[in-house]
């Protein structure tokens, strides 16, 4: 189904995802963008059913936009994460959605919140999701260090995604990365043949 990932660093967050959407064994879209903007400095990484996550993300974007206008302030990442949790928990039987919410706000800087299937909400410094995540827990646990710079986080995410895309049949295509900081947003795409390479038998 996917590989998605998010990492906190001092000034913000780095998020990444693969680009494959499948219907059964056929790849319906090989260049999907699973990093969806919810607000100016808040993104969500979508995994699970495309229809469900697109619908939930649209609903939360609307609610957050409305809330932000009422507040007359940029919204908190925690607010966005809670909106996702409320929707995913209430409709937990009907939805198949695993979402990672990540962004920057003035109060707490860069934050990553994970809302897996079932509707739990927990903040984590680094989080992975989707079917491809199973293959990279070991890599994440052994290679993550706190206090990495933005460039180190980008490299870490790219390597993790490359490993997952190599092993998981439901992940592949290109790797999409984004870095969100106070200053703004930087999006990059790493094409299939430019991904970091590792040993392969």
């Amino acid at each position, binding site marked *: 189904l996917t590989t998605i990932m998010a990492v906190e660093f001092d000034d913000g967050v780095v998020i990444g995802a693969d680009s494959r*959407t499948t219907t059964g064994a*056929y790849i319906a*879209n090989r260049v999907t963008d699973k990093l969806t903007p919810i607000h100016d400095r808040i993104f969500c990484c979508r995994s699970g059913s*495309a*229809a469900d996550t*697109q*619908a939930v993300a649209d609903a939360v974007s609307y609610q957050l936009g409305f809330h932000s206008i009422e507040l007359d302030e940029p919204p908190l990442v925690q607010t966005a994460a809670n909106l996702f949790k409320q929707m995913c928990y209430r409709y937990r039987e*009907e939805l198949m959605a695993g979402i990672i919410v990540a962004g920057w706000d003035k109060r707490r800087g860069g934050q990553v919140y994970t809302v897996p299937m079932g509707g739990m909400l927990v903040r984590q410094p680094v989080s992975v999701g989707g079917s491809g995540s199973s293959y990279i827990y070991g890599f994440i646990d052994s290679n993550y260090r706190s206090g990495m710079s933005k460039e180190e986080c980008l490299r870490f995410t790219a390597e993790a995604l490359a490993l997952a895309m190599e092993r998981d049949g439901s992940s592949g295509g290109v790797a999409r990365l984004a870095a969100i900081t106070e200053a703004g947003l930087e999006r990059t795409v790493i094409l299939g043949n430019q991904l970091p390479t590792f040993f392969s038998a």
Partner: protein
Amino acid sequence: KMLNCSTQYEMPNAGFSFDNSRRNAVLEEGLSEKGYSAPKARKTGTTIAGIIFKDGVILGADTRATDDMVVADKNCMKIHYIAPNIYCCGAGVAADAEITTQMMSSNIELHSLSTGRPPLVVTVTRQLKQMLFRYQGHIGCSVIVGGVDVNGPQLYSVFPHGSYDKLPFLTMGSGAAAAISVFEDRYKANMELEEAKQLVRDAIAAGIFCDLGSGSNVDLCVITEKGAEYLRAYDEPAKKGQRGGKYTYKPGTTPVLAKTVTPLTLDIVEESVQAMDTQ
């Protein structure tokens, strides 16, 4: 004195009615025990495709509608009008695709009158996906929406469960795999009109020849800033061949060498009269 009606006329509720779903489920169970099957919804078994070229969007579709393994319509129209600058190819259940696109067209015209602006392709896509998501995939309508508006040429695919993708080239339907292979091989950004039309024609032809559910002719719809041009039966790759000759021979072709006649003596054993009901 006037007699009151025992039943009052009830205004039908708007939208789809699933009242008969439970009855249908029981009926299907009962029929299958006896070896019969319930009539299936007619699926279009289709190849539809769309690309973005230099000046706009080209949509293409085959024209075969199937009822299980029988061709129900040899020349149906799968490219539906939504707005003067937006057209929609429909695959999946024929009735669902037809009605849904007609509903969208109505709503978009009303919306456009309300906003005072020509409709946007994103609006069509959003309304489609929000409706399909609400019905959780029970409306079996897979659609490619293409058009040119103030934001330029755009192409979206929408699946029955309500997910959408925005891409420069798209195929859907049972012949999607055959058609996408043609696009993956030969698509380039900013193609010229004739090259692009030929490419879409070739992709649909791949579906017509390599997919059992698709056939007959290729319909194209070219949409640019100036407007839309619907090319019905742009190409007929699978025309029925012309009969070369006949197998009947003139009497006298074979010479008669000898002739013997043997009359058979028959007795009438039983005689019965069956009257035809000619009322």
